């Protein structure tokens, strides 16, 4: 309920009430039509029917018109609320980025967060408005029928009570069935993606049958959960219609004895048709309950993501707001050198994970260090600490001779450029994609950075040069080009320490070797630390060590 209250902005409640009038018009249209037909059959003077005819016409026109107003109004309100929530979510995500977004596939985590927010806000239009509208119409119906015949009001109240109970039950059932259903579909999608993107590698080892077996297993779960969800929806629908049956019967039983005494024939027709008309007006409820359950699950996931503590604290003791005027003008921070001195540095990715063995090494400014090692040996965690994405648990980390904990986070991060294995290209021009690393950069500097990253030939082949549009809706780039653009961005930033987290993990051997060779050749004036699970193509590095070598305890004394 708290989610619904949270989503019910004044504009939305207004929309709901307008929707309620539209629904009421629909119910009134059917009921008054019944009255009119029966009244007409008594062959009165046509004039006596005029008021009712006007009413029927008004209700008939009011329903679509009010519905239109409600839909425009509610969508506008929901989109306004979406705009506001997006800014709020973005602000909350910034201090959690990147360390609290998981270690890999961060863009998947971020994509789900955006989709979840859409689902939450979707509930404004699909849950809040229909529920307010249905309750409004039901309330009007209770009062109107009670005025005509008190017992009839009770019958309609019974309908409402039954609907509320079924909605509560459906919400509970839907919540669990939807989670299972979404998980099953996501798992099937994952298998589909795995098989599609590895089709050639699977064919190469004759594993087609294995792949189809995994898919079949995931699919049988999809079918099972879909069946369960269908049963729950079906039961909800059946409950609604049985309620209509019971209330129509109840209405007939309370109205019949009163005909001719307290109610006229035409009013009797009106009353008997009311439960049926209400049923037609409330067919959207099961869908609304489904959307409610979906929004609730999405809201839960978002809260869990956004309520995390940031992984780094600022030197001032305040929680990180990582931006600042210091780097916004784009000039390379001249104050810090690129030397790195790490002494008995203990890190852990998250308080719930075990701490990694202490690491010690020393790197003069301009030196290139490659760290290899198996997955899970702590390479990426070390790099996250070097990049000031997580705070060290113990030990010291001197950057340019100063302890990073003694300097503002902005200063430390302003000296570091990090390239990981999933660099993002924004939907913008090539120029803007690079310039975000240094807004003051000239076209010549940008082209020089691209050349240093080995993209001179590629750039020369682009008809629109730096104005080429990249990202979604733009020019497609290969994995190698993407990695190189990210490197060019890092080179352009002019930051003295360059950290590379498996930058070529997804590239084939030849491309990976070429990218790394270009990098070590052109970044002679800055310190480079690269972690990689592959040990090939590291000839250009001053030092290549295995993670375990760094973790060896220092000899005593």
């Amino acid at each position, binding site marked *: 309920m708290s989610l619904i209250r949270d989503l019910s902005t004044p504009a939305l409640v207004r929309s709901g009430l307008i929707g309620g009038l539209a629904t009421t018009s629909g119910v009134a249209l059917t009921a008054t039509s019944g009255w009119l037909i029966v009244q007409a059959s008594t062959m009165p003077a046509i004039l006596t029917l005029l008021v009712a005819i006007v009413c029927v016409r008004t209700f008939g026109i009011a329903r679509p018109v009010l519905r239109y107003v409600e839909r425009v109004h509610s969508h506008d309100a929901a989109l306004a609320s979406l705009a506001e929530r997006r800014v709020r979510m973005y602000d909350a995500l910034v201090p959690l980025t990147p360390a609290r977004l998981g270690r890999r596939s961060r863009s998947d985590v971020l994509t789900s967060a955006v989709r979840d927010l859409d689902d939450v806000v979707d509930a404004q239009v699909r849950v809040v408005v229909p529920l307010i509208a249905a309750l409004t119409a039901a309330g009007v119906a209770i009062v109107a029928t009670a005025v005509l015949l008190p017992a009839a009001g009770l019958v309609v109240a019974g309908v409402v009570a039954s609907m509320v109970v079924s909605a509560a039950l459906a919400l509970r059932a839907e919540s669990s069935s939807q989670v299972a259903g979404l998980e099953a579909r996501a798992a099937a999608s994952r298998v589909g993606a795995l098989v*599609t993107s590895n089709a050639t590698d699977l064919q190469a080892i004759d594993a087609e049958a294995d792949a189809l077996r995994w898919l079949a297993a995931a699919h049988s779960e999809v079918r099972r959960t879909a069946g369960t969800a269908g049963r729950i929806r079906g039961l909800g629908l059946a409950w609604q219609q049985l309620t209509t049956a019971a209330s129509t019967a109840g209405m007939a039983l309370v109205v019949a004895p009163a005909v001719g005494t307290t109610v006229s024939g035409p009013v009797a027709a009106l009353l008997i048709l009311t439960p049926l008309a209400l049923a037609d007006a409330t067919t959207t409820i099961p869908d609304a309950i489904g959307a409610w359950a979906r929004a609730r699950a999405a809201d839960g996931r978002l809260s869990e993501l956004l309520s995390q503590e940031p992984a780094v604290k600022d030197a001032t003791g305040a929680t990180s707001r990582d931006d600042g005027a210091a780097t916004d003008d784009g000039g390379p921070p001249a104050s810090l050198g690129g030397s790195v001195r790490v002494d008995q540095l203990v890190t852990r990715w998250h308080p719930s994970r075990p701490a990694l063995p202490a690491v010690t090494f020393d790197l003069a400014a301009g030196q290139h260090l490659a760290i290899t090692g198996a997955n899970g040996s702590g390479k990426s965690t070390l790099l996250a600490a070097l990049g000031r994405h997580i705070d060290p648990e113990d030990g010291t980390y001197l950057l340019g001779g100063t302890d990073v904990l003694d300097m503002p986070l902005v200063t430390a991060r302003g000296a570091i450029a990090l390239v990981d294995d999933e660099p993002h290209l924004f939907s913008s021009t090539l120029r803007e994609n690079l310039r975000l690393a240094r807004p003051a950069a000239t076209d010549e500097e940008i082209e020089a950075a691209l050349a240093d990253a080995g993209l001179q030939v590629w750039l020369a082949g682009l008809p629109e040069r730096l104005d080429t549009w990249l990202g979604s809706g733009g020019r497609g780039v290969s994995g190698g080009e993407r990695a190189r653009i990210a490197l060019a961005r890092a080179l352009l930033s002019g930051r003295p320490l360059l950290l590379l987290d498996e930058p070529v993990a997804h590239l084939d051997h030849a491309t990976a070797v070429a990218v790394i060779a270009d990098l070590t050749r052109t970044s002679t004036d800055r310190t480079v630390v690269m972690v990689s699970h592959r040990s090939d193509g590291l000839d250009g590095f001053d030092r290549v060590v295995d993670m375990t070598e760094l973790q060896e305890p220092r000899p005593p004394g």
Partner: protein
Amino acid sequence: MRPFDPRLLRAVPESRRGVGALAALGVIAGSLAIAQAFTVTSLVVAVVGGMPVRPSLLAVVAVLTGRALVSATTEWVAARAGARVSTALRERLLASWLTRPADARPAQAQALTLATTGATTVEPYVARYLPALVAGVVLPVLAVGTLLLVDWVSALVVVVTVPLLPLFAALIGKATEDATARRWKTSASLAGHFLDVVRGLPTLVGYGRAQRQARTIGEVSQRHRRATVETLRIAFLSSAALELLATLSVAVVAVSVGIRLANGSMALHTGLLAILISPEAYWPIRRVGAEFHNAADGAAAADQILAELDPAPGPVPASPTVRETPRAASTTPYRVRVEHLGYTYPGAERPTLEDLTEDFPQGLTVITGPSGAGKSTLLEILAGLRHPTSGTVTAPHAHLVTQTPFLTAGTVRENLTLGASQPTDAELDAALDAALDAALDAVDIRAVVTALPDKLDTQLGDAGFGLSAGQRARLALARALLAPAPMLLLDEPTAHLDEDSVARVHALITTLAQDRVVVAVSHRAELVALAEHVVTVHPAPAKASR
């Protein structure tokens, strides 16, 4: 787009039962809706006329209970059919792709969309749109038919006005087509902005540019709101117009009924019946429109998947690959040969391989050449994973170890037996384990596996134990060793290995080459020295005339 594509029933026989059941349930539901009008009319007439209500009351309850059962069943059947059809489509699609060479499959991005969200969106298409379509066809027909028997004047009004609904829908759609398309485009590009910025958040944070994006997000979201509401206004206006049209049509029926009732030329029972039945001819049509709009993605996805499943998609290979069937006697050497082989990647301007003629004799052949010369492509062609653009290939069935060998997040055992088609018999387990151990031993990784917590049953991958690139490469070689294929193709088999292991693996490769055809791509001079035959490929020269 057609309302329903019968190809679905042909391509996915599993869909027949569900679609058939939905059609039958739709007819029953439609009949019950008409029956409801009759029983409710009787009930109202009985109450108004002071007649006994019990018979018509029981009839109303019976019909409504029947409707409850039918709609519950429909919902259940529809959900099951949706899941069945969408999963069957995905299975057919992937099965089809796995039998095709890489160049006869669609581009990766498009393939991924179809195999993931594409197949999933078919579910609501079947589960929600199809039942609405059935109701949209059945109910208006039943309603008009019944009205003809009850009151032909009302039937006439309905028959004249019902076609106006789709007509108006089409006219409105036509009139607003350009405006809608233009606005959707604006709206879609603005909608993508937030996702783009959020996905790029790690980059923005890294370069200290995150904070200043917050204001842009607010502004773009407001622009998106305005653009979307403008688009929706058109959509809502047209649906309001259709609803008004339907209401007015029923009102015309009501007026004619009212006049005849008031001048006594019609019985109450008939008039009420006509009034209750006529709306049943209009709303199902409007619902089809609404559900079709929601299911449009699913319909488009189903269309694309069915097109993929049609026989002979993509380019027909210029020259078929000759596959030699496995022979019983392994003493006869296999003949492996490429003649005038050429290969051009789809969409590429220049060929990767051109006019290559080579024999790959029994024993070890090493392919060398500069990067980009098409060495990996040649291996994929020998393995039958790509069709040559020109020339012929003669080769037996092969096991190819690619540069990024596929390892699943399963156990070591599962990874080693990938592709070993028969599920293993419990009694053979011991023998199998011995074979697995021997293979692991041959690639110098047995000690590593023995040290794992659950040995062969240790889970690998993100959730389990991490392997270094060298260990992964050796695991893939062990798997190749276990494969029954008469030809082994190895792409850079020792690129990730340290110097100690390289010699050991090279020795293993020569052993393997004693009774199989082994073709390896390698930069290593040591392996070239061990080869019986060396093939050097050069990048295809750029053509002067293009």
